[in-house]
């Protein structure tokens, strides 16, 4: 087990290093932050002063060296837009984003998994077709279209909810629903197909033939075995809790990490982008790690096969 954890951690460190290196190179080579942040109309003297202040006139390898030397000392850099620590700027946005993504995740799970299971258990019924129609709709309609439709209906026509902003819990309803419905559709589809595959297995027939109640067969034999693909999808969803709402945050003017990422990338505000990418990479790596552990719980054969697993 220790070998397993160490190898995963080593891979995580390598992943994070590569993410930060690639993003540094891509952001630095694809645009000069001085021209972007100072605007194209800024006087050349001001642009030159800006470049000098932020070390942008150094060769790129030297900038890279300075950046990583600072990161290793725990200094994640400052925003070139206003000089504040990048970690502080991103940290201020995380709770705002989680206010959307956590309830949305709950919505995805509470709608997607039960409806997927129900649809599989009632295959080819009207309810199955209804659930799958909604799933296809939720899966294929882009989130910005769904968001605009919801705003049109619930804000403009009915006047029940605000169109944008983050001033109260009412402002969160439409973005949470937008995020939740799309994710629920994905989960429903995966859960249904996983359940259908398991329900066709011989051991399900055997369990039924032994006289077990159908509910017990489903609960004890079908659900745990069908959980593996669903957990994989859930892992991705947990991993994208921080930056998975970029579009929805933009449409609803929700001041979270996603919107900050858009602004920081367009301004080539490297320190801020790097902090966000670092956190996203960490979340993703942690989520994958938890998914790997969960695999072992739901299917002990995976634990047996894993390096460092029980032998």
């Amino acid at each position, binding site marked *: 087990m220790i070998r397993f954890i160490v190898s995963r951690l080593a891979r995580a460190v390598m992943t994070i290093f590569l993410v930060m290196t690639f993003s540094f190179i891509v952001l630095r080579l694809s645009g*000069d932050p001085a021209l972007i942040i100072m605007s194209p*109309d800024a006087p050349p003297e001001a642009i030159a002063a800006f470049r000098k202040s932020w070390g942008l006139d150094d060769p790129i390898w030297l900038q890279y060296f300075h950046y990583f030397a600072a990161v290793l000392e725990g200094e994640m850099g400052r925003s070139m837009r206003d000089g504040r620590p990048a970690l502080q700027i991103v940290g201020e946005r995380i709770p705002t984003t989680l206010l959307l993504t956590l309830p949305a995740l709950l919505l995805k799970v509470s709608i997607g998994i039960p409806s997927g299971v129900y649809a599989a258990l009632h295959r080819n019924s009207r309810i199955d077709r209804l659930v799958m129609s909604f799933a296809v709709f939720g899966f294929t309609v882009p989130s910005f279209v769904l968001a605009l439709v919801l705003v049109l209906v619930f804000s403009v026509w009915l006047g029940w909810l605000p*169109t944008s*902003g983050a001033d109260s819990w009412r402002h969160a309803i439409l973005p949470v629903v937008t995020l939740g419905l799309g994710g629920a559709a994905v989960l429903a589809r995966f859960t249904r197909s996983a359940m259908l595959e398991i329900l066709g297995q011989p051991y399900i027939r055997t369990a039924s033939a032994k006289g077990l109640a159908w509910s017990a067969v489903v609960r004890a034999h079908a659900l745990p075995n069908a959980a593996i693909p669903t957990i994989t999808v859930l892992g991705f969803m947990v991993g994208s809790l921080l930056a998975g709402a970029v579009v929805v945050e933009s449409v609803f003017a929700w001041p979270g990490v996603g919107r900050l990422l858009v602004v920081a990338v367009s301004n080539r505000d490297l320190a801020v982008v790097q902090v966000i990418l670092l956190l996203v990479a960490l979340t993703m790596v942690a989520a994958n790690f938890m998914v790997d552990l969960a695999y072992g719980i739901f299917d002990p054969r995976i634990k047996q096969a894993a390096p460092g697993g029980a032998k």
Partner: protein
Amino acid sequence: MSKITRRTAIAGLASPFILPHSALAQVDNRPSIVIAVQKVSNSNTLDVLREGSNVGERIFFSSLWEGLIGRDWLNGLGKVPLLATEWRRIDDTTLELDLRKGVKFHNGDEMTAEDVAFSFGPDRMFGDTKPSANPKTLPYSERIPGLGAKEVPQEVFGVARRAWPNLVKVEIVDKYRVRFINGSPDVTLEGRISRYGSEIMNRRAFVEGGNYIEWARKPITTGPYKVAEFKPDQSLTYVAHDEYWGGRPPVKQIKFVEVPEVSTRVNGLFAGDFHFACDIPPDQIALIEKNPAFEVQGGTILNHRIMVFDKNYPVLADPRVRRAMTHSIDRQAIVDALWAGRTSVPQGLQWSYYDDMFISDWSVPAYDPKIAQDLLKAAGYKGEVIPYRLLNNYYTNQVQTAQAVVEMWKAVGLNVEIQMQENWSQIMERNQTRGVRDWSNSAPFNDPVSSIVSQHGPNGQQQQIGEWTNEEFNTLSNTLESSTDRAKRKEIFRRMLVISEREDPAYTVLHQNATYTAKRKSIKWKTAPAFAMDFRTGNFSL
């Protein structure tokens, strides 16, 4: 109808003195408004010398920052007394101004000459930069001590020095009188005082406040509204400055909220979340005005959309090819088709508010495909590719305009190829593939120096990044900046237009830029021909 008795009259007159402050506050029935904008501030600061953008103009003027000489926002943008009541020339390099008495800053301090001198001093504005015509600046001994931690960003000094290239100092004559002393003769001193970036700040708040960023998020100024809360990338809330010298502001609170999506701004307006929705593209105007409760106001602003040539690109080295490009653009068709006729084709790179410097018989090159074809033939153009670097709608209708113009060029035989780019540094990158690009030019004050010299002269961006230069034009630029002979200056300006727009085109003007604001019809408010939104007394009622 109730009868007014002696007792009720006395009670009524005495009530303001008897009622507690909380009760008085309750009778403040001025409205609070919410304005949806695409961007509140690009720099995440409220410093006029750091946020030099159009969006800055909207939130700053005439709500927060005020200068000594202002602009008549609603009537032609001419110069008007603001924090100075009168001004006079002492000589060609010196301008004396009388300050308005009784002006209160947001912290209650009275504005005096010390604040003005500090606003134009080295600690705030110029750092160690030196005036180019008289290279000396205030020694450190004359500076305010204890400003080391303020760490004003160096680019602020760069912006300020470009706006005031030869200002030596602002001298205090007495508490209410100052003198601007320039290092060289300059007929544009009054204009420079009225320009964006020459506003007055409270010296005490700057010196005694925290670091630069804390100050720049809540500057203490004299405007009719003061900063209550600024959330970068989210919102900016102003509250009325009731001691404003120009009278009690008509709005209790103004909140600018950042809503990046056009559709969300429009939906928010319809749903009643916003009183105003800014940055409305022309194609949305008809949709909004279908609803009788709303209207779209706005129009041309002090900014022209232009196309810029790189004459180092081999095909464009021959001015006849560039001239052909300028003659093959049907500018009016662009205005009619893409702007629904809601803007206009200007008379070259100039604005009518230049007053006596405006050249009224000047115009952009005529749309004449025959002339264009003849010029191309004479230049021996054989259909070589001309690259056109383009951003994705940085300017309103930018891509559509580019596509239309490329087709117009194609019609006369020009082979122009659009190359989409992501940002300005890619657009300006100096290499062998830079041919044509888009830009826009403004005039921060009412003189050609503020535009044609500032943007295309020897120190302007176009020459600084190596796209274009012209010896005669550069000599004329220098003369235009320093000459005090107005008739001669006008002739110089005319010749500069001839060179840069006809003989050796540096750029070609397409159309005047415009901005549109949607609002509820019930709000009595008039837009300015600018990004600035005026919410002072007389221009707002609900």
